[in-house]
């Protein structure tokens, strides 16, 4: 069953030039949906639009059957969504614990829930517990990513949107993040993942969307894509070379 979907959305940053043109996608409950495509395809823009950071000029965003297009960003977390952007979003001069506390902002009036949420995140990332009193800027790149993902998990979101979580991470750490995502899916969290690390993302995916030049290109289940993936990537490389 679809939990989050974009229907025919058009998004522009400035003026009339559209970054996304008539793009549709849907994420099924408890599955990992990946969005892949060459540089500039509009993958990150789609994720930002799904989380309300960008407002579509046309089309709509549907969550649990309700139209949530145009809702303010800070309302998305209350609905049960969470988003981890590609850019660094830890607060460097705050401690790890303070960063996590802010992730539990919407739970802040219920101390018991906050503590449960912290235990939940520490169970995934014990290193955050060890370093909870350190300033976030003293963490390594991989640990900072764990902090960002952990912070997004505090509210136990139904849908987690992730933009390139493994970019700039060492292969070992990237592997850890992917196995963590699988564990999260096993706990019934729906995941929408944008990734350049196509092969590894494909390994854990249930459904794949390919975007090219701001439009839907191909899509299908992992089974439908088996054997086709190489061809799709080859197409992008040809595209990159010819432009």
């Amino acid at each position, binding site marked *: 069953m679809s939990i989050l979907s974009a229907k025919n959305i058009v998004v522009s940053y400035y003026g009339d030039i559209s970054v996304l043109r008539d793009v549709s996608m849907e994420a099924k409950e408890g599955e990992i949906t990946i969005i892949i495509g060459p540089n500039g395809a509009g993958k990150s823009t789609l994720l930002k639009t799904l989380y309300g950071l960008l407002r579509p000029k046309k089309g709509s965003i549907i969550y649990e059957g309700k139209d949530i297009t145009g809702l303010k*960003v800070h309302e998305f977390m209350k609905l049960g969504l969470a988003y981890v952007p590609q850019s660094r979003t830890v*607060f460097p001069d705050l401690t790890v614990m303070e960063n996590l506390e802010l992730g539990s902002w919407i739970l802040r009036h219920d101390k018991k829930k906050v503590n449960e949420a912290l235990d939940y995140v520490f169970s995934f990332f014990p290193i955050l517990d060890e370093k909870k009193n350190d300033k976030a800027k003293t963490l390594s790149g991989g640990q900072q990513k764990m902090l960002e993902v952990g912070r997004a998990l505090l509210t136990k979101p139904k849908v987690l949107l992730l933009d390139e979580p493994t970019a700039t991470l060492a292969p070992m750490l990237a592997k850890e993040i992917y196995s963590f995502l699988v564990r999260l899916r096993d706990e019934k969290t729906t995941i929408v993942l944008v990734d350049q690390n196509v092969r590894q993302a494909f390994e854990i995916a249930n459904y794949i969307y390919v975007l090219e030049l701001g439009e839907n290109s191909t899509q299908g289940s992992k089974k439908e894509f088996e054997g086709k993936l190489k061809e799709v990537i080859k197409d992008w490389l040809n595209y990159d070379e010819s432009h």
Partner: protein
Amino acid sequence: MESILIQAIVSGILLGLIYGLIGMGMNIIYGVMRVVNFAHGEFMMLAAYICYWLNRQYATNPLHSLIIIVPLFFGLGFLVYYLFVPRLLNSEDPEMASFLVFFGISLVLSSLILIIWGADPRGIPFPFKRVSVSIGEFFFPLGRLIAGGFCGIVILLLILLLFKTYLGKAIRAIIQNREAVSILGIDTHLLSAFSFGIGLLLVGLAGGLVILSFPAITPMMGSSYTLVAFVVVILGGLGTPLGALLGGFIFGLAENIGAVFMPTSLSPVIAFVLLITMILIRPQGILGEG
């Protein structure tokens, strides 16, 4: 000479606390919104005039007037925020746009005060029985001691707010990364309006305390306190609330110790010398990060 110097140091620390309060308000506003409140000194002057007016009308002690000033200026912060700032944040260069808008507000405020209370310096009868306190061979002005002590308490409460509460942590977080705060489910506009309220509340408190520390207020004093705020935040570090406190101490001490050796009319020179020296040596300020 030694006793004069010691008195100047104590006086400088007390004044530094008031300057710190003014600077912390400006730094919170700048840090959270990247808005340069060029009317900061004028808001402080407005608070001082309201205290003066309350004293004339109802013989209110300025410390009691603060009970009105605190909610009034906190609310004024919300009003000013929602009237101007969201539009400024959408502009291409919020810092420059805010500089112009708040320069305009500073002109409006000083003209308004000029129209209502005239250009003559105003003051209130000193509300306490004694003017100074003597400790051994030293004499300290009571008004400044009370104002400094009050500022110390407020600064302590502010530090507790910033470091021990969710709200304060969110303010420190939004100073570091605005977008990241919004994705965590925090209403950035409400948080910014709250921060603006805190900024004006602090400067409003300073206005009430200034009238205790200095003999007269004038409709032109606002700009010199805006300069104080700028010097203090640049010394301590733009956007770092605690830096402003440090900047306040340095400026207060420099001004008071300077006055021992130089004519008091030269005190603006001290401000500019400190400002320029800091910009040359460490443009990000003492606690600021490059």
